């Protein structure tokens, strides 16, 4: 697989695939969904706007009119997440009216798909520079509200109706892999909390956060600068007491799964040439990406085939991947991935800053959070050549993107 073809920007008849780089990424602090959450009463589009504006401020050498596309993902595309949110967010952020935008949806992998779709456009030569991100205000848009599943799902047994509930699919995954016990998932969840707390302590999370002012009735304006969901200090004993809401005597709890959250992310992608031209930093180079479908009833296994496909495209082996950012919708889903590839539960290559179990998972926004964190880890660890961002997706899918570290000594030296 050769993506690394000598690239020139003219989109001539002899079309060449161009290198795509991840320039920068930011996100809002994540909040807990619901009336008491930090973003209760706020609009989802405003969260996206703050991310876009901060991206622009952080990259002052980028003229706003050079942005060719704004792709913003949201799972529920109504209300404050409706009206083609990529376009509305661009206008509300004060980008020139000449900058187009669109909305995109692949449930949890919305932002990730926004990145891969626009990256493909860059590689093709349709864009030089794009903004891609996602948002989910699950307080304003509880999961599944307004959805109208086709009755054929049931009548023709296309999908078990229970599979529309993600918690059920996680329990199903435990059934499939009896070796993954509740003890293992709880232990994994505790480590996720610990790793996030350590990353906060080390100042590894804060640089990618956009502060968001919020106002609550009767208490005035405040400034949200840190994530709300984390519960540092959580122990396995704490988690053992939690009930299993999806199945009596089940294994999936609020403690070993991501919560219901509000938040937004946005990233800046560019062709390698445009980044060089404008003096934009290169934090990662896109190597390969793949999406794959699995049985909806065990949607959490999705990252496995997606990763195999992406590795195949990249001509790489799982052993070549030095860092994993895997979304933690459920601990069981992460462990099923690790078991498949023979990676230890405590492998230091995996989710160094913790994961969604601690930080939260505002559905369509999460993909870019994984990328931000991988980019920072690349910077911290030049010994790593390749990293991976991967996540499972409702209705049975997985998504994987493989990235190359520009800080590595062999960066760009041979084809990958």
């Amino acid at each position: 697989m050769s993506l690394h073809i000598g690239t020139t920007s003219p989109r001539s008849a002899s079309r060449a695939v161009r290198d795509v780089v991840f320039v920068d990424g930011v996100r809002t602090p994540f909040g807990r969904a619901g009336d008491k959450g930090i973003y209760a009463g706020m609009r989802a589009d405003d969260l996206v706007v703050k991310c876009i504006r901060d991206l622009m401020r952080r990259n002052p050498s980028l003229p706003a009119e050079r942005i060719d596309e704004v792709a913003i993902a949201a799972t529920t595309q109504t209300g404050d997440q409706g009206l083609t949110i990529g376009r509305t967010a661009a206008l509300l952020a004060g980008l020139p009216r000449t900058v187009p935008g669109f909305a995109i949806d692949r449930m949890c992998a919305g932002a990730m798909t926004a990145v891969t779709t626009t990256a493909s456009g860059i590689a093709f030569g349709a864009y030089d520079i794009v903004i891609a991100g996602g948002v989910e205000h699950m307080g304003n848009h509880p999961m599944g509200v307004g959805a109208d599943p086709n009755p054929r799902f049931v009548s023709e047994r296309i999908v078990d109706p229970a599979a529309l509930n993600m918690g059920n699919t996680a329990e199903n995954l435990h059934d499939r892999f009896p070796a993954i016990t509740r003890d293992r998932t709880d232990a994994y969840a505790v480590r996720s909390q610990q790793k996030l707390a350590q990353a906060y302590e080390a100042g590894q999370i804060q640089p990618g956060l956009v502060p968001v002012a919020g106002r609550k009735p009767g208490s005035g304006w405040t400034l949200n600068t840190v994530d709300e969901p984390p519960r540092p200090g959580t122990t396995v004993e704490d988690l053992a007491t939690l009930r299993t809401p999806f199945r009596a005597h089940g294994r999936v709890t609020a403690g070993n799964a991501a919560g219901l959250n509000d938040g937004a992310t946005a990233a800046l992608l560019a062709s390698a040439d445009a980044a060089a031209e404008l003096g934009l930093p290169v934090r990662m180079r896109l190597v390969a990406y793949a999406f794959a479908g699995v049985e909806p009833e065990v949607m959490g296994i999705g990252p496995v085939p997606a990763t195999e496909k992406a590795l195949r495209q990249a001509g790489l082996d799982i052993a070549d991947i030095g860092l994993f950012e895997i979304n933690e919708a459920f601990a069981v889903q992460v462990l099923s991935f690790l078991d498949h590839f023979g990676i230890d539960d405590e492998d230091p290559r995996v989710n160094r800053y913790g994961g969604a179990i601690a930080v939260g998972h505002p559905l369509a926004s999460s993909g870019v959070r994984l990328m931000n964190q991988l980019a920072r880890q690349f910077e911290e660890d030049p010994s790593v050549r390749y990293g991976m961002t991967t996540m499972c997706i409702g209705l049975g899918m997985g998504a994987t993107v493989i990235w190359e570290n520009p800080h590595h000594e062999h960066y760009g030296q041979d084809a990958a």
Partner: protein
Amino acid sequence: MSFERYDELVGLVPTEVVTHSYVQDIALPEGAGVLALITLDNDLDSTKPTTLGPNTLIEFGRTLEGLKERAARGEISAVAVTGKPYFLVAGADLSTVKSVRSEHLGRLMAELGHEAYDLLSDMGVPSFAFINGVALGGGLEVALAANYRTVSSGANGIGLPEAFIGLVPGWGGVYRLPRLIGPANAVKVMIENPLSNNRSLDGSAAYELGIADALFEPADYLEQSLVWAARVLTGGEAAEAVAQRRARLARYDDVAWAGAVAAGRAFVEAKTSNAAPAPSRVLDLLEAGRTLSQKESAAAECAALSDLMQTPEFHATVYAFLDLVQKRGKRPAGAPDRKLARPVTKVGVVGAGLMASQLALLFARQLKVPVVLTDIDQARVDKGVGYVHAEIDKMLGRKRLSQDAANRTKALVSGSVSKEVFSDADFVIEAVFEEMSVKKQVFKEVEAVVSPECILATNTSSLSVAEMAADLQHPERVVGFHFFNPVAAMPLLEVVRAPKTDESVLATAFVLAKGLKKNAVLVQDAPAFVVNRILGRMFGEITAVFDEGTDAETADSALRPLGLPMTPFRLLALVGLPVGQHVQESLHAAFGDRFHVSSNQQKLIEAGVKGLWERQEDGTEIVPEQTLALIERGSTPSSAEDVLRRTQDALADEIGRMLSEGVVAAPEDIDLCMIMGAGWPMHLGGITPYLDRVGASERVLGKTFHQA
């Protein structure tokens, strides 16, 4: 706690909607420590502005006291104030200030503001104001008291309108503002803007003047203000940039200061004839403040505020502004339920003269429906349509219209020599020569082509609407729609109900008026309606004393204490002597000798003289010899005092008659008409509060228009 001395004020206004001071600690970036952020919030939605009443100020002051103690303990490194969305805080609650009925309480209220605001300027740690929206009067003075300010480019309504309302920016504004932006710009903000239709600034203009140190866009205004505050607190470039910018914008010396005061005084004289006390009181404070300490100025400001709060001019302005312009003007007395209104999708204008063309432009621009003009020949029609198109081009040139909007508006306006074009119109207004027989003929011709429901309106200023409708098949469709010249600028519309006018026709007229962005007042079908009748009575008195032998200067300046926008003779010249004379004759015909028709004025008209006064090359105005030679005058001159009193009494008499005839529902409508239609000053309350105050209503009618 020092705010206990204000306990007397606590129960002053039981209805006060308190704006709370909510505090949140914010950890600033860049290691700048903790900022205590006060949000001024009344817990109501953005249609209910936050205001400053006594309880609000006491809570604000006590909050600041508490924060000052925390600052002293080293718990916080900065304090900032901002507001709920769209408002920093809109200013003093006027209905509160109005109810301060003793000088003692007024002084206490003034001192309360100073005590609270002075705390903000001296917290022991730097203080900031984040001007996120409306900041008027006491609202802006909160910000001025802080050590640093940012403003949102989305903010609107920033200013010190006290001189307009009858007060002074006496919570430190008059002292602090000139020191920030220089005396000349301070006069602009404190005098020129308030006295020019109460103009205010937007965020960008406030920043440009130096009222704020930094400008941020609304999308993340508070976040960026906090980042900026952190940078200022940590010293370095941001703090240095503020210091340099302030030094540049507030560059002045004694000469500049005195010059600004003098320019302000000239402006006040030209605009108000110094008829109301507040504007010159502002300038007195500004002038004295040059050499005073802030504490000394504060004492003078409190004295001025407590004086002015007791003045009738202040109370009349609050009446005019709150009760009339903001309330009655928006909900006209006697307007039928708007649900009765009919849709208007096409408008006809009979006539293509200047008035008709102005109407066509207004209808097309505001209603965005097709408007068709007719006149007796193609040349006149072309001229009328040409006028409208030329006006649209002017607006396009001044960027008040986009090219697309200009194209659309032009396309809406057409003309014809045949009234057949009215056949599908819903509303036809005539603006032809002011002659009953002509108007009746026009209506007869229009009725022959239009649908039975089409409304016929007349822009007559003095003729009987009922008579105009009398011979029609559907007299109930006729309504008076009396605009004032220039149509685009004057906000008043007298909507005339004739005895047979249908409720749905009247409802349509009011809905239409709103669509045209005019303030409609319902008047009955009486000669000259309201504004012209009152102006006519005034003109009659002034021309009468002149004809009797009073010299022009004495006669024309006798009403100076009212502070009218223009003297009577100058206004007559502007209207045009023949037009004025025509109105006066019709009033005389209707009401008899109490409306004087000046034979001297007739002589001037016949001689082609445009007005009594003529401007000389040096700018002064005189009555030229050749004009005087035309005039025959009596030998019983009056003093200015006599003229003033005689005019006051005449106005009280005429208004008393109008009210007993039922021309309007209440004296409030008279006042609203005079403010909106003649530009009479708010410090007169329009006119009836003034007539009560000077005793004219008591003298003439034996009672006042308003309860004391």
